């Protein structure tokens, strides 16, 4: 992924979290100014960054949210729960989009409409709230209009930018492979193009080896959005002999499509190096085809046509075309060229005389039309002023077009030069902008249009028409005196292009100096910085001779604490700069100076007060300096490191095995001894490494806990319950993988407590309890485990009800229910498809929650206990491994195979004589420390052949914990305790419930680790 996007995603998540936390805090203390500022700044910063990407819906939503927060800051509207809900929703949506960006690097197609709805909702709220606050909505209405205008400007600017990027490639470049596209597809492309659609030409040369990569070039091309047609050809000439390799791709594919360039690029993103995407000018699709006759009869007609084109006599031209068609062979090049000419006459009319001329040449010469001749080769300049491509395009215009355009531009320029009241400026900019836009659009001048839109947006934003005036004057010049520009030597042309930027920069320095001076403290600094800029400009222009004058002016001003000398110098400099460029932008820049000078003084007075009103009080609430030094590392790197260390541990474990072989198989005990010594060193180092990487991977439980304030708030609001959430031990750390896996089960359990556990306020009062219930989440470390407790003071689990329900659902029989203790009954809630609530709510109670919770916890080697008292509440206690990286297992033997059992479940190992085993209710059980423990014969449970290793009739039994109770596993034999790196089973194997994972042993063999909870009794 693009690193910038990556950075944005990370930052956006942080900011969204900051905003959400801030909003929650604001709900309880709505008057916290710092809190409002923090949320505002998060939104503001986010908005700034969204502008860098193609995520307009996101920008709009964040912008709308920011405006609301701005209004809150300004005390225009007030915070209430509804507003918090609204803003949280908005930020949630932005969060969803961030996820989309991460997954697909772009927003889904629905984002536009969702964004529009969401920002409309926010704006509506703001307008309504303002209306209430100010007692009338005129104000809000006006504000909304400004917003709309702003949005329109942003959009048109972005559009202009995008177009600019496409046009960065030379506007009309030679695309020789267009003639490889079938004529009828080219015609379709032309028709789309002349109708104003963008038509993309695609050339795709698949790698010879592409089939081995599972690529399907043709299939891919057929998926192109808006595909008009395709063509193929051999990429190289091949001889059909032994050398031909039929498994290699030897084709080139061409396609034409009207889809969005971005979508098409996206489709071909994996083969972008093999694909050329072009946006040919519409006339480039006009290429005659057919047999070339050397018909001399055509010479006459060609002359006739020339004169018709010259006189713009379309009727005459059509007549000549039809005469010529009768002469030439129907399938010839000339006939086709004639058809294309008719097509142009019919579709583009006399606006495209140049096209007709070009086609006529082609018909006559039998060569492809030389569309490139319609344009001089100039690298497009990206400055906002009229650039070289634009000038060239203007000069290409036919005489009539040129005159028309010149007329329109001339008038608009005249209007722009007229003085105007400040408040009417925007209207003038907008209206003139539209007029010129329309005329350019009619002449199909995309490059000019794009530039103009950008110029207008800029003018709107600055409320200053100087840029437009300059652009129009330059255009007019190009239209009326085409030769004046094209004859300039290259060096001068470049100067000319930069000229505007230089003038603008110098002008800005003038404006800076002209600002009223509210305080003298920064006067000297301002003057010296202006000096630096001007020195640089002069150096760049090669006018070192002026440097002395500049220095003198600045020195004088510093002494006299004024800016007059420097201003005088700038004025002189501007005059001088204008001279070498001749007539080009003379009046443009004078016009500019006038306008901005007027604006400058008008606004300076207003803003001086504002500057004082902006104190340093914007001091921050967070980001203090005392933080520990941390480093953001890519998750994948840490995972990889963990994996490598795991491998290292396994490799290390092979050393004692090698030592053994050295001693016994090769008879070199000395080497064995050395190996063992070295093993101890490596062992110590790997243990340290393991400890370190474990600590790196440890995250505080707060990672899970932090989402609960929001969740509990939302759910309790929905349920109409009052809940006080208490979080304890958030700083307790556990392995990242444990934290990640636990997030969802925790949500399930919390939802469950809120939904089923805690009563409604009325119910609580009736039961003599406090109206507000308490939900306590507590984390702490106990030995090698992290304990998480979820405790509520609700109604508790009623074992009688649970039993009845379980019988009703057929989970247990009535007999089993009768034999079950109250404690055992509670665990029934973890049975699949168990739900005590009659009504299915959208929060919990679908019967899929708690059994998933249990299996998840067991899968990571944890365990779960429940303690509940009717009427008093429930405690669910989770015991989780600190880390999933290293597991302690006990090796057991079964039918000559070795399996592992997680050590933390093992209570004791024992041997039973047959008389100790009793059959109670058809199940083998035994008494262990005066408790009745069921027996499970592992061979049977795992479908291994029955039998026993021992011949004295005793059974080896491993007593393990399961479901809060105990169970005895009958195994063949026990072995030692091991430290292993357990990896979860992958693929189809991951569905086997009886295994928790696999581990590699020192001798290279693989051991399967049992999941005790997954064994069927």
């Amino acid at each position, binding site marked *: 992924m693009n*690193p*910038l996007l990556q*950075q*944005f995603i*990370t*930052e956006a998540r942080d900011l969204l979290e900051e905003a959400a936390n801030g909003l929650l805090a604001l709900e309880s203390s709505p008057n916290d100014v710092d809190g409002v500022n923090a949320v505002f*700044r998060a939104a*503001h*910063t986010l*908005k*700034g*960054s969204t*502008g*860098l990407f193609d995520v307009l819906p996101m920008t709009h939503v964040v912008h709308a949210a920011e405006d609301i927060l701005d209004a809150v800051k300004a005390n225009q509207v007030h915070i209430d729960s509804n507003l918090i809900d609204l803003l949280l929703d908005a930020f949630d949506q932005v969060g969803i989009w961030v996820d989309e960006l991460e997954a697909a690097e772009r927003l889904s197609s629905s984002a536009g409409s969702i964004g529009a709805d969401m920002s409309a909702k926010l704006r509506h709220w703001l307008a309504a709230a303002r209306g209430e606050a100010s007692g009338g909505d005129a104000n809000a209405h006006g504000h909304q209009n400004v917003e709309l205008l*702003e949005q329109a*400007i942003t959009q048109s600017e972005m559009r202009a930018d995008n177009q600019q990027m496409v046009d960065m490639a030379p506007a009309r470049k030679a695309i020789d492979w267009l003639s490889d596209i079938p004529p009828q597809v080219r015609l379709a492309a032309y028709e789309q193009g002349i109708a104003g659609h963008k038509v993309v030409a695609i050339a795709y040369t698949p790698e010879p080896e592409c089939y081995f990569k599972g690529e399907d070039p043709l299939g891919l091309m057929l998926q192109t959005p808006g595909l008009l047609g395709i063509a193929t050809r051999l990429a190289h000439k091949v001889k059909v002999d032994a050398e031909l390799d039929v498994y290699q791709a030897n084709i080139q594919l061409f396609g034409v499509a009207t889809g969005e360039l971005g979508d098409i690029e996206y489709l071909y993103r994996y083969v972008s190096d093999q694909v050329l995407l072009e946006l040919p000018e519409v006339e480039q699709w006009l290429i005659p085809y057919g047999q070339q006759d050397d018909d001399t009869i055509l010479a006459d007609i060609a002359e006739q046509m020339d004169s018709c084109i010259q006189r713009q006599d379309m009727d005459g031209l059509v007549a000549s075309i039809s005469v010529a068609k009768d002469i030439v062979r129907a399938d010839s090049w000339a006939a086709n060229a004639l058809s294309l000419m008719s097509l142009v006459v019919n579709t583009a009319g006399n606006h495209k005389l140049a096209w007709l001329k070009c086609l006529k040449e082609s018909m006559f010469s039998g060569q492809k039309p030389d569309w490139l001749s319609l344009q001089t080769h100039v690298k497009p300049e*990206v*400055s906002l002023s009229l650039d070289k491509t634009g000038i060239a395009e203007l000069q290409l215009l036919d005489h009539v077009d040129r005159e028309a355009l010149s007329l329109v531009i001339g008038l608009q320029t005249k209007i722009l030069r007229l003085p105007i009241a400040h408040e009417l400026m925007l209207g003038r900019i907008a209206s003139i902008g539209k007029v010129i836009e329309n005329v350019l659009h009619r002449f199909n001048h995309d490059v000019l249009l794009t530039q103009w839109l950008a110029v207008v947006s800029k003018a709107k*934003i*600055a409320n*200053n028409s100087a840029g437009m005036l300059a652009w129009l004057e330059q255009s007019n010049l190009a239209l009326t005196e085409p030769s004046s520009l094209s004859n300039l030597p290259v060096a001068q042309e470049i100067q000319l292009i*930069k000229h505007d*930027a*230089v003038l603008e*920069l110098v002008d*800005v*320095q003038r404006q*800076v100096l002209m*600002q*009223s001076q509210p305080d003298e*403290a*920064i006067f*000297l*600094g*301002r003057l*010296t*910085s*202006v*000096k*630096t*800029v001007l020195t*640089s*400009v002069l*150096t*760049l222009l090669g006018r070192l001779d002026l440097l002395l004058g500049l220095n003198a002016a600045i020195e004088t001003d510093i002494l006299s604490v004024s800016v007059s000398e420097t201003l005088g110098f700038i004025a002189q400099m501007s005059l001088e700069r204008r001279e070498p460029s001749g007539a080009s932008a003379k009046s443009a820049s004078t016009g500019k100076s006038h306008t901005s000078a007027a604006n*400058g003084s008008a*606004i*300076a007075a*207003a*803003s*001086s007060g*504002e*500057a004082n009103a*902006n104190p*340093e009080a*914007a*001091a*921050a*609430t967070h*980001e203090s300096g005392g933080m520990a030094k941390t480093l953001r590392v890519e998750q994948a790197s840490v995972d990889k490191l963990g994996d490598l260390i795991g491998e290292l541990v396994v490799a290390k474990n092979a050393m004692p095995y090698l030592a053994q072989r050295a001693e016994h198989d090769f008879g070199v005990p000395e080497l064995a001894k050395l190996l063992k010594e070295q093993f101890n060193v490596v062992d110590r180092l790997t243990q340290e490494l393991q400890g370190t990487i474990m600590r790196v991977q440890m995250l505080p439980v707060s990672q899970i806990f932090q989402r609960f304030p929001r969740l509990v708030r939302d759910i309790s609001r929905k349920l109409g319950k009052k809940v006080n959430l208490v979080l304890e031990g958030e700083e307790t750390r556990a392995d990242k993988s444990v934290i990640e896996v636990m997030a969802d089960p925790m949500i399930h359990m919390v939802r469950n407590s809120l939904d089923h556990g805690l009563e409604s306020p009325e119910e609580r009062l009736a039961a003599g309890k406090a109206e507000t219930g308490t939900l306590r989440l507590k984390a702490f470390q106990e030995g090698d485990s992290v304990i998480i407790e979820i405790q509520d003071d609700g109604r508790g689990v009623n074992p009688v009800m649970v039993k009845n329900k379980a019988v009703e659902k057929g989970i247990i029989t009535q007999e089993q229910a009768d034999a079950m203790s109250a404690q055992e009954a509670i665990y029934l809630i973890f049975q699949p498809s168990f739900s005590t609530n009659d009504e299915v709510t959208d929060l919990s109670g679908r019967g899929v929650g708690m059994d998933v919770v249990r299996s998840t916890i067991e899968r990571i080697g944890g365990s779960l206990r429940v303690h509940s008292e009717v009427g008093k509440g429930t405690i669910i206690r989770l015991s989780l491994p600190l880390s999933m990286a290293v597991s302690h297992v006990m090796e057991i033997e079964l039918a000559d195979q070795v399996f592992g059992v997680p050590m933390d479940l093992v209570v004791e190992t024992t041997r039973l004589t047959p008389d100790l085993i009793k059959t109670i209710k058809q199940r083998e059980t035994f008494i262990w420390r005066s408790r009745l423990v069921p027996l499970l014969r592992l061979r049977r449970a795992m479908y291994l052949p029955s039998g026993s290793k021992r011949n004295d009739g005793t059974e080896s039994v491993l007593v393990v914990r399961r479901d809060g109770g105990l169970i005895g596993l009958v195994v063949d034999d026990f072995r030692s305790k091991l430290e292993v790196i357990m990896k979860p089973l992958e693929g189809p194997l991951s569905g086997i419930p009886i295994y928790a994972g696999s581990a590699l042993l020192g001798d290279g063999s693989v051991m399967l680790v049992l999941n005790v909870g997954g064994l069927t009794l």
Partner: protein
Amino acid sequence: MKKVMIVDDAATVRMYHGDILRQAGYDVVEAFNGVEALEKVLANPVDLMLVDVNMPLMDGYSFLREVRMHNDTMHIPAIMISTESEQSDREKAYLNGANDYMIKPVRPDVLLEKVRLMIGG
């Protein structure tokens, strides 16, 4: 090599501006708010500063005013870059010591053109 300091609390914006400048051969220093920027620029003056407006602890205006009041840094050109597009924001930037003003998101070519004009390189 000319050194440009980017002062912005948004890491993405710092990266975006930084990449544009680095690719054009400038040395880039980053700071995430006015306080950090001030510390850095006083210790090691730069050739140009791109300054955001809204930042925690010390905003862009205050930062520029501070810079303009210190002998070692008062000459350093500054372009203020903000999301605000009002003319008054522009004027306010000039008032507080900026030498130019750009609206986010900036176009890379325009930014580079301005930087080149201001400090060359």
